[in-house]
């Protein structure tokens, strides 16, 4: 073998190694998790267990929010089954209290006092009352929601459930699972449901 051809074959080996490296370039969620455990620390109520993914977070991460229809169906059934609906069968609370919860973006961060009632941060992502000009656009507009969907018991149960666990209806939704995660209480979710559906609420004015 000439010197040149040795160089060539070494080059080929290097190229092959590089190709292998490129093929597995993207770190797995477990590798990300390991790094987060190394580099993050618990603070306030934000414990380290929060960087561990549950099956929904994992599946939505690895599929870039597009799992197969079959998996979506299976897992949405599980998520739906975990929703705890009010024992009294009433889904609507006080829309005036709901307005405050919708406007507040507090809760669940390392700065928030553990146990203090948080908000839903609804306006961060949704338009709600048309009279409020400051709203986000990550989620759809919910202005005049009652006019669009009606205020039937069925609609009330849907809105309550959607706030409680959005993933039961849209598995990789960017909306938090406010009930499942313990971010909002049953009463708070009832108040928000009323804010969205009560005909007297500014959302429907």
């Amino acid at each position, binding site marked *: 073998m000439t010197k040149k051809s040795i160089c060539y074959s070494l080059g080929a080996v290097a190229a092959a190694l590089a190709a292998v490296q490129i093929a597995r370039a993207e770190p797995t969620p477990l590798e990300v998790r390991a790094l987060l455990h190394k580099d993050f620390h618990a*603070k306030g109520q934000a414990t380290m267990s929060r960087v561990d993914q549950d099956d929904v977070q994992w599946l939505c991460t690895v599929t870039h929010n597009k799992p197969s229809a079959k998996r979506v169906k299976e897992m949405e059934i599980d998520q739906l089954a975990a929703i705890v609906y009010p024992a009294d069968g009433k889904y609507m609370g006080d829309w005036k209290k709901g307005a405050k919860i919708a406007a507040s973006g507090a809760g669940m961060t390392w700065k928030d006092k553990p146990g203090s009632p948080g908000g839903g941060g609804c306006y961060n992502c949704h338009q709600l009352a048309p009279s409020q000009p400051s709203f986000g656009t990550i989620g759809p507009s919910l202005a005049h929601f009652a006019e669009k969907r009606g205020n039937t018991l069925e609609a009330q149960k849907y809105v309550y459930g959607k706030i409680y666990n959005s993933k039961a209806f849209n598995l990789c939704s960017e909306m938090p*699972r406010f009930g499942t995660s313990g971010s909002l209480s049953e009463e708070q979710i009832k108040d928000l449901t009323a804010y969205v559906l009560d005909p007297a609420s500014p959302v429907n004015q």
Partner: protein
Amino acid sequence: MLRVPSRALLAGLALTAAASLVHADDTNKEIQKYQRMTAESSPVELWELEGADLWKKKRGPNNVSLERCDFGMGPGVLKGAYAHMPRYFEDTGRVQDLESRLVTCMTTLQGFTEKEATKRVFGNADKPSDMEYLAAYIAGQSRGVRMQVSTKNPKAKAAYDMGKALFFYRAGAWDFSCASCHGTEGKRIRMQELPVLSSPKGARGTYTTWPGYRVSVSQLKTLQWRINDCFRQQRFPEPKYGSDATVALTMYMAVNANGATYRGPGTKR
């Protein structure tokens, strides 16, 4: 000491703008106008001047300045250094961003312990941190330089890949990843437009203006602070200052911003 006299005036302008709003589009135009006005009267230079003094000041147990600190272009070479960071450093065996590299120099040159060097990295309006002054000064030395962050080194490439994976990793109490807010074009939180940091367009526009002076709080904020506060709002635990995870994310955003001209330190809402 660096209180801005025009702060009340600017806040007044913002209120006037907010009061005259009818539609969201108008609001955005008003916000952009407000941003242009604030940029024109930005006090960022004061931070840079203070940082230049700190850079030359003899400090720490070794009583030496930072002037021999190497940001990858040779000891003490600052021109264009920030536009090439994060990068791999042989002496630490790590990929480092500006702020983690400053910690390295404060420990190796000046003799501080890491704990001392990172004791107060985020300041407040009354008392900014040394890190904020220094970051403003050093980043300012890359103003007008094209972003050219390299992933040729395997560790730099690995940091980029990890940063990308981290960007899309969903977890926390609210199931958020970075991409939940910064992954789709044309979205807002309240009135704040959200740059898509996974795309060159969004990353170029935003990355090149950090660190930045935030008018609403009269403070200069560093990129490490920005990442820290994003994770807080993601309902995650807290990232360690200058850690590999934060550098990896910075690497991902910096590479996405490659080709753009660095024009910071900028001015924010």
